[in-house]
């Protein structure tokens, strides 16, 4: 992972960068927003972490400039404020996600990973998690090089879960995805489908969690 971190508080920038580097990520740090649009063009970053409250050109304006030059780089905004207005303003100026200070490192990293993964899927249709790879055009899943046999329903469900990796997907949303799925079919039928799918993909270092009463969530056992 190659991250550009824009944060004016030197201590927070250093601590966050150190935490990312400890996981083998490459991190560049900038204390101001001005050089960011150029850096984004010059270097091949996977994601931009942008503090809203920057001196001079603030985070929102920096983001606008980055987007104005046609970049789709995933952007996660950091802010010390958490009013709804801020959230709306951040997302409206083109941020992909939003995190309020003081954040926990694992959450920041998980959000960034999810952002990058979704971005990659949008870019080249590749869905991967742990050893699991899903080819959207061929509608086939692989663990390493070995093909995994999935039913049509299982592959629809898996594709959607992988697109939403790290997020809870509601049961009724999954049920709506499956063609010819009897709306009256019980939650048990869906749970049966999920438990079969779970058996097929968990050898790939992937965990398919059931969130009681709500839905399902897919995640890597060992975060990269």
């Amino acid at each position, binding site marked *: 992972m190659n991250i550009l971190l824009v944060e004016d508080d030197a201590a927070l920038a250093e601590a966050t960068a150190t935490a990312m580097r400890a996981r083998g990520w490459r991190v560049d740090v900038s204390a101001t927003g001005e050089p960011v649009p150029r850096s984004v063009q010059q270097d091949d970053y996977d994601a931009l972490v942008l503090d809203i409250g920057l001196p001079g050109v603030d985070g929102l304006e920096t983001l606008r400039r980055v987007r104005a030059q046609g970049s789709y780089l995933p952007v996660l905004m950091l802010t010390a404020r958490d009013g709804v207005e801020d959230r709306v303003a951040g997302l409206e100026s083109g941020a992909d996600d939003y995190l309020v200070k*003081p954040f926990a490192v694992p959450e920041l990293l998980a959000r960034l990973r999810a952002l990058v993964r979704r971005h990659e899927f949008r870019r080249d249709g590749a869905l991967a998690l742990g050893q699991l790879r899903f080819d959207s055009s061929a509608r086939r899943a692989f663990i390493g090089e070995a093909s995994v046999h999935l039913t049509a329903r299982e592959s629809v469900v898996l594709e959607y879960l992988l697109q939403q990796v790290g997020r809870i997907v509601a049961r009724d949303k999954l049920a709506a995805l499956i063609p010819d799925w009897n709306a009256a079919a019980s939650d048990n039928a869906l749970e049966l489908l999920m438990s079969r799918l779970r058996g097929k993909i968990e050898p790939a270092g992937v965990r398919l969690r059931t*969130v009681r009463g709500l839905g399902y969530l897919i995640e890597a056992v060992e975060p990269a």
Partner: protein
Amino acid sequence: MSSAARQPSLQRTLLLWLLPALALLVPLGALLIYRIALIPALDALDRALTDTTVALEQLIDWQGDRATLPISAQTEQALRANLVDKTVFAVTDPDGRLLGGTAALTALAQPLAAGQWDYHDAVLGGEPVRLVTHAVACGASPERICTILVAETRTKRAAARRAALLGAVLGALALALPLAGLAVLAVRRALRPVESAATEVASLTPERLRAVDTRGVPSEVAGFMRATNQLLDRLRTAAAAQRTFVADAAHQLRTPLAVMRVEAAELLAQPHPETMKPALKRLHGAAERGSRLAQQLLALARAEGMGIDPTLPTEAVDLRALAADNADLWLLPALDAGQDLGFDLQPAWVRGHPVLLGELLGNLVQNAIAYAGPGASITVVTRAHEGSVELVVEDDGPGVPLEERAGLGRRFQRGRQAQGSGSGLGLAIVTDIARLHGATVAFESGEGGRGLRVRTTLPPAKTPP
């Protein structure tokens, strides 16, 4: 109100002044009416006697010093004719000899000059009478004076007096009673806006310092009410400034707290000497706690800020969607704490502020995660239930002893067994936000007497979209 007895009452003061004045003025008024009504009546009766006297005067005849009263029996009868009273008369010559009429009457004669009249009440034969005395010249010299006396019993006069008295009393009462009633009514009526303004002031809370409506308040009290409103305004400004300060302070704390949180977590994650572990853990715990406290202080300031502004619009919010949308935020912390977080969500529409309701729900769930302990099962329930909407967060952890539950909604109050990174603000925020939404929060035992169940009961949205 026991103090009302000792405190001066505007209403009583007004009545104390008004009622004695009425008590004095009403009899005076009655007396005046009595006199005004009686005098013409009595005058008219006297005039009838005068007429009889004048008729008798015409009858007196005199030659030289000798006066006579040539009167026929018919004339005398006509003169004495009276429907109600008895009339008697007497005419005497200058020497006091009776010329005609009733002799007994002459004893009542008074010396008068010629042409003079006298009217007075007298008693004749034990009976009260009205007596007219008139002196007329009856001879060549002016000193020769005949006296005419006409007396009438006073039945008509007594009747006139009674009628006048009755009229006066009734008239005065007809005036006084409505006046007294109207006075009481007017005082009460004038004070009613003051009372309602007082009720309004009494219902104000620090979170809701609305200006009091001064429309309809009497101008005498309006100045006081305006001063009250100005005071409320200053209070509101001061309260808002205090909340802004809390929000700013919490806000400024966030970046340094973020540094502490990141550094402490990283130090713990890196290889470190075993002897440093307890200190690092404490540092990490303190950073987590401080972070949460800052977050909650902001939430509290925001909730109170919204409460201060009564014009803030509310919207229909489905608690089911609110819970489902936020589930992602809670899942990781619950998994980290070794807990099973589950949901049982039915549509549950309420009217309110989505941000605040999200804060309420988040605090309840985070509270359960913080205190239910490893292995616990936490369930979030939303449902519409018998004309109200319920939001229940239940766990099967250690629970809270009955005697400590009442204090749960208080700020900085934590259960005695409470461990972990709680600030003691979470449930205070919950009760604050619940109150703003007209909701109640109940702390109960969970299923089978285990754990804690927090039940928030909200009024349902009137028109679910």
